């Protein structure tokens, strides 16, 4: 498989992922700005965080994505989460792995979702009314988005330059990309966007939010929390635990 890493075609992101996730160096908190974290990140604790964390599991390999789907999602999460002063790029943050695992698992298979017919179109406020599991809806949506991307721009989504890909996602979210077979705005807004947010802010247990990078970014201390004294001592003040969040993984 590694012989193919020089491939610059649509599949390149998929193959890079394995390398990138394995090789991720967590972002040093000094690089983080933002009022929420800046005041906390200054100080000696930051230096210790620059080492790759021990014991953080690295998930590699997709459980359900096809090559096209992997390429689409990797491009999407890298556009939505570019490498910047806050975090590494979306793939390196584990966002694609998270989405893959969720779609391969209970969510994707429609656990808990009412799936009896008849299937009639309805108002948006009643929620999606399609006889598809979320995983099937995902696949159909990637195909439709790529179909429209090819029609409009002559390329599949993963082949777009980042600025074009960003514009395409905005058009998707605003309902400006029309497809005869599938309504793409709810696909993006009610399936893909929530998965993106969840990938960023869930416990790293699920493969996203690698090294708690998003928790560090906002200053969420994670768990456990025995805050009775903190309620008074840190009311209206920066909370020191926010610089070193703890996840389920840290206690497992």
């Amino acid at each position, binding site marked *: 498989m590694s012989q193919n890493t020089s491939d610059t075609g649509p599949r390149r992101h998929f193959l890079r992922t394995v390398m990138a996730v394995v090789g991720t160096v967590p972002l040093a908190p000094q690089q*983080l*700005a*933002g*009022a*929420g*974290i800046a005041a906390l990140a200054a100080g000696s604790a930051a230096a210790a965080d620059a080492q790759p964390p021990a014991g953080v599991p690295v998930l590699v390999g997709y459980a359900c994505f096809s090559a096209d789907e992997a390429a689409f999602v990797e491009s999407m999460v890298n*556009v*939505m*989460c*570019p490498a910047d002063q*806050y*975090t590494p790029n979306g793939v390196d943050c584990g966002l694609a792995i998270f989405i893959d695992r969720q779609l391969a698992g*209970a*969510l994707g298979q*429609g*656990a*808990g*979702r*009412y*799936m*009896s017919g*008849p299937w*009639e179109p*309805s*108002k*948006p*406020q*009643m*929620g*999606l*009314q399609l006889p598809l599991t979320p995983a099937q809806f995902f696949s159909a949506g990637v195909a439709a988005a790529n179909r429209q991307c090819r029609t409009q721009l002559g390329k599949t989504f993963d082949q777009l330059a980042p600025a074009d890909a*960003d514009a395409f*996602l905005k058009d998707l*979210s605003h309902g400006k990309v029309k497809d005869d077979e599938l309504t793409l705005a709810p696909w993006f807004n*009610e399936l893909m*966007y929530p998965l993106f947010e*969840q990938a960023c*802010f*869930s*416990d790293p*247990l*699920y493969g996203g939010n690698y090294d708690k990078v*998003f928790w560090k970014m*906002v200053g*969420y201390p994670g*768990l*456990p*929390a*025995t*805050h*009775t004294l903190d*309620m008074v001592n*840190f*009311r*209206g003040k*920066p*909370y020191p635990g926010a610089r070193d969040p703890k996840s*389920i993984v*840290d*206690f497992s």
Partner: protein
Amino acid sequence: MIKKLPKRTVVIIGGGLTAGLISRQLTSQGVDVLVLERGGEHAEGAEAKLPTQRDELRWDTRQGLVQRWNVQTYTLRHNRQDAAAPIRWMEAFLPGDGVGGAANHWNGHTWRWSEYEPTLRTHYVDRYGKNAIPSNVTLQDWGITYREMEPYHELFEKLFGISGQAGNVNGKKHAGGNPFEAPRRGDYAQKPLITTQAGLQFTAAAQKLGYHPFPMPVANSSGTYTNPDGQKLGQCQYCGHCERFICEAQAKGTPDVLLYPMLRQRKSFELRQHAHVLGIDYDRAGKRVTGVRYIDVQSGQEYEQPADVVVLAAFTMTNNKLLLQDGIGQPYDPATGLGVVGKNFCYQTNSAVNLFMKNSWMNPFLATGGTAMCIDDFNNDNFDHTGLDFLGGGLISAGMFSGRPIKSRRLPPGTPRWGTAWKQASADWYAHSMGLSVQGSCYPNTENFLDLDPVYKDAYGQPLVRMTFDWRANEEKMSAFVTRKMEDIARTMGADIVGPAAPRKSPFDTRVYQTTHITGGTIMGADPHSSVVSPRLQHWDAQNLFVVGASVFVHNAGYNPTGPLAAMALRLGEDLVDYVQRPRELA
């Protein structure tokens, strides 16, 4: 083949809060009680232990403690002319599943409703005249008074260790409490929770505007606590994982901590789990019920369980479903206004606004499900409605309940939905933002009701409950008014940015969580023609069937329903001790 079981004295459908409270009363007098609960136990599961308890994705986003929609959901249409669609994944409200029911994953807000609420129709007519209530707003008196219920409120607050600040003790106003509260006999069981930074800033602004801020009364235990039954609560650690979670510290007053472990030690009590009730056996001619039918969801075996008395103590929707399905009582017909079952279905009319203050550390993760400062100045009829073209109102509060980062990140209006600017806004504002919210009343409307869906079925082949519901004119106008009052407070707080304060408007949207406080459909009252159960919660058309829970509420106030429904359950338990010895129509 259905198996018939030996007869029991009292069979309770649903193993939640009200069933636990009724069972407490009955078993203390040795009355035989069987509780049928469709779900299992939570106390020893991953949901109740660290570190797995603190998993926002699993318990909150993916609704790990909530009714499974593939087994049973509801259909919705906004108007009875429309076709209804099944809600395939509900976000708007979250019935529980398992021992303790929805009261396991609640936040703990515990109110005594205003003294005038059980006699609201009389109150409005007395204050504003006989034309004050529009003809399509079917308010009616409940057939009880607050005075009758006060001892049971008192008992519930002691049992659940409610933390709060009294504002009205026997008519004497106490500074720092709620001056609008119904008169209490004494202090709350425990002192109030510690106030958050958001609460302090809200309090200052509310006082500046001449309002009366006070801490929310809650079942989050401000100290270690032992209740009158000897059951214990730990001290709350302000971890921000209350609503949608099981408290691993046993610091939240819930049935699975305070009731069921105790009940299991009592000889006359039995809890049967994984027992999903399919129907109530109704002897129409005899005007009585003979028992219930249920399926053991682990084996698939169906059972007939005979009973002297049946108590319907499930969530609002299931209470309605079983009565409608088994033809107990006359279904409500909106075309004629006749019939009662399914009538006066209400929700709550909520709205919110976000505030962003770069110089204030709000630290949203230092919180409980009940760390809120509130004002009641614009709730219900606490303010003069003369000249206003609506009735009702809302509680305005600065509730900081959690900093869970998937859902509790507030972003200023205009923030891009992704990219570096989105990250920057998340980083800048997560610890420096707060919200205000309105929990508004919802009055009954002739066009809001429940019946059985003619098309869609649940996993057992039974019809789904169909909601015909939308925000009607009275609620939209109320929301516009109270939301403006909330916005005024927000603007007084000196925020750098105040988000849009959008009042609640039609259409009702099932994709957004609003509150689990749905009420009505099996309403109580003194007149059998306009109510399903009597003021003693006894079914008018089946003397040995009792219905309890928010489904008996005639309307919904700007308060959480738990206080009154718990008080009613405690009183019902007491009544049933008497009833099983001498069955009769209770006066």
